[in-house]
């Protein structure tokens, strides 16, 4: 040890410290996460693995499963996109405008968080069914909402809205009016200001909100099964299919569908995360310095 040159010593020490820090920082969450999240997830894969590869492929590529997966991811994606647009608008209105009843409206945004999803599903079904308040108005126009994939999108949009609103709102509040004023003083028109100054600055949080709404939409069950009508190949979502297989005591098939959903969800969330990191590269990383100097 004594013969060791200084730099090596320092380096060894440095790495030892770093390793210790890493250990202490990651040990606790790892064990906690392992128990709560990873073990059940691994269980899904283990159970699915009791089937042979050919059987797994048969289940996954069966038309009914494929249709259900397509429906689940498709409607969740569509609903998340709708939420990204309208959630942004709602957040914008909350941050920028004062109007009577604002606080009440503000509280109501969180309702989908708190409401049992089955209640939301029943309420939406009652509204959009052919004899419901809204359904009876849409039906004559040839627009059927309840018991169609459209109904699923409606339910998922309702469930996912607060995710976008609540993630975008604080960032929008931070994006001071000064940036818009600066852009305007430099001659930018309104749309140029929105497109080139405001949107880029809230894009990371908008992506987060989108990802959350999407993830929630993929896993949503309670509200959808009421409004979807659950017609196989048309409006039967993948989570319902899992439940059906469970009720048939076909655990391996259920976990196979579940594992497939898990893989697809993970891949999509990974892509969103990469996008987020890319759009985030200027702001969050050095935010503490910026705040300090302010």
């Amino acid at each position, binding site marked *: 040890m004594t013969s060791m040159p200084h730099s090596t010593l320092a380096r060894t020490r440095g790495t030892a410290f770093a390793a210790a820090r890493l250990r202490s920082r990651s040990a606790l969450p790892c064990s906690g996460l392992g128990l709560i999240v990873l073990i059940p997830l691994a269980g899904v894969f283990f159970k699915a693995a009791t089937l042979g590869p050919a059987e797994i492929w048969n289940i996954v590529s069966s038309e009914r499963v494929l249709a259900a997966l397509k429906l689940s991811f498709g409607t969740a994606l569509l609903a998340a996109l709708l939420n990204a647009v309208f959630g942004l608008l709602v957040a914008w209105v909350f941050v920028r405008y004062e109007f009577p009843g604002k606080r009440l409206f503000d509280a109501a945004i969180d309702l989908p968080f708190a409401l049992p999803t089955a209640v939301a599903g029943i309420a939406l079904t009652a509204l959009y069914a052919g004899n419901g308040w809204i359904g009876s108005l849409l039906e004559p126009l040839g627009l059927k909402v309840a018991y169609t994939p459209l109904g699923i999108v409606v339910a998922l949009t309702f469930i996912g809205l607060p995710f976008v609103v609540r993630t975008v709102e604080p960032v929008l509040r931070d994006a001071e009016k000064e940036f818009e004023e600066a852009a305007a003083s*430099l001659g930018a028109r309104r749309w140029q200001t929105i497109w080139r100054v405001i949107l*880029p600055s809230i894009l990371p949080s908008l992506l987060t909100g989108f990802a959350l709404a999407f993830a929630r939409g993929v896993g949503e069950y309670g509200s959808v099964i009421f409004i979807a009508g659950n017609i196989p190949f048309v409006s039967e979502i993948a989570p319902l299919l899992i439940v059906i297989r469970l009720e048939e005591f076909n655990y391996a098939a259920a976990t196979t569908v579940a594992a497939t959903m898990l893989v697809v969800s993970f891949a999509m969330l990974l892509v969103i995360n990469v996008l987020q990191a890319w759009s985030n590269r200027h702001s969050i990383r050095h935010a503490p310095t910026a705040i300090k100097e302010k």
Partner: protein
Amino acid sequence: MEILVNNINKHFGAFSALKNVDLTIRSGELIALLGPSGSGKTTLLRIIAGLDYADTGTVSFGGVDMAGTPLRERQIGFVFQHYALFKHMTVRENVSFGLSVLPRGKRPQKWLIADRADELLELVQLADLGDRYPHQLSGGQRQRVALARALAIEPKVLLLDEPFGALDAKVRKELRQWLRELHLQTGVTTIFVTHDQEEALELADRVVIMEKGTIAQVDTVDRVYEHPASPFVFDFMGSTNIIPASLHGRELYLDGKLVATLSGSILPGGAVDIYVRPGDLRATGEHSEGVEVMVKSVQRTGPLVRASVTLASNDQPLIVELPHLHHDVPRFREGSRLYLRLMQYSVFPSADRLASRDSVEKPTLIGRERVREALP
């Protein structure tokens, strides 16, 4: 570009932020809007810029009323207190922004915009930082980027809102010097807001001193300091001692003792306040003009010696400042009693008199005197 501000009024709810403000700014001037917080200086700047609208009154640039001209068409360069740099753009993109949002017909080609941005970065001495992002710069560098960005659109008027407020003292001094030089180079009519007297005095051709939404005085730097229009201006421009006295003809008395004699013709006699700076007081003998004081404490602060004294007549505290090598310094010993001569001062009607008067007439200077210091 000459700027004419005519009879501006602005309310925020019940609060009256600006009251009947008139101001003329000559082309090419460098003007400071100076005042304590809440005096309306930033509001006035924002109204001139078109970021805010006045309730009544007009702003015109070069004789053209700006009422119908929106912010983006006014061609003003506005520099915000916290810079408001676009975080997701590089320094060069920030500087180019103004040119890149021009309508397609007027927009220069991409390489021309880039050239122009580099030129401006050279001007603000940041030529090699064009590819950085704002968060990678220091406060002073950010401020210079903000200036370059504002200059890129070749503004007719440059407006700066507390441009150095968020910087530390040393950087602030450097940037001040640099802004002064930049103004000499570009000659753009420039208005900046500050609450720092020193900054205003050092930079500006003329100073607009604001008080509670009105303009207290508009004058050159020297005249504001030498001929303050009101007790407020005197007080705002530096530390102040107030000595109550009574005026008889041209003579000022405190407890029957002659304090000073004014040379000019002076109007109404009665209770007055003498305003004098700590550095304009010197020790004198019992038999000459002066006020009697007790020395409470003496403290050396850097190049100055600061003595806290109280008036012998009513125990009112005063501060005296002397250069530490001054021959008077040994006379200021704790507990000693001595006479102070007022070397330079202003006289205003006393605050009581002003308060009791029914009209809200502005307190006016009734006389000021300057005494040359005799060599020992």
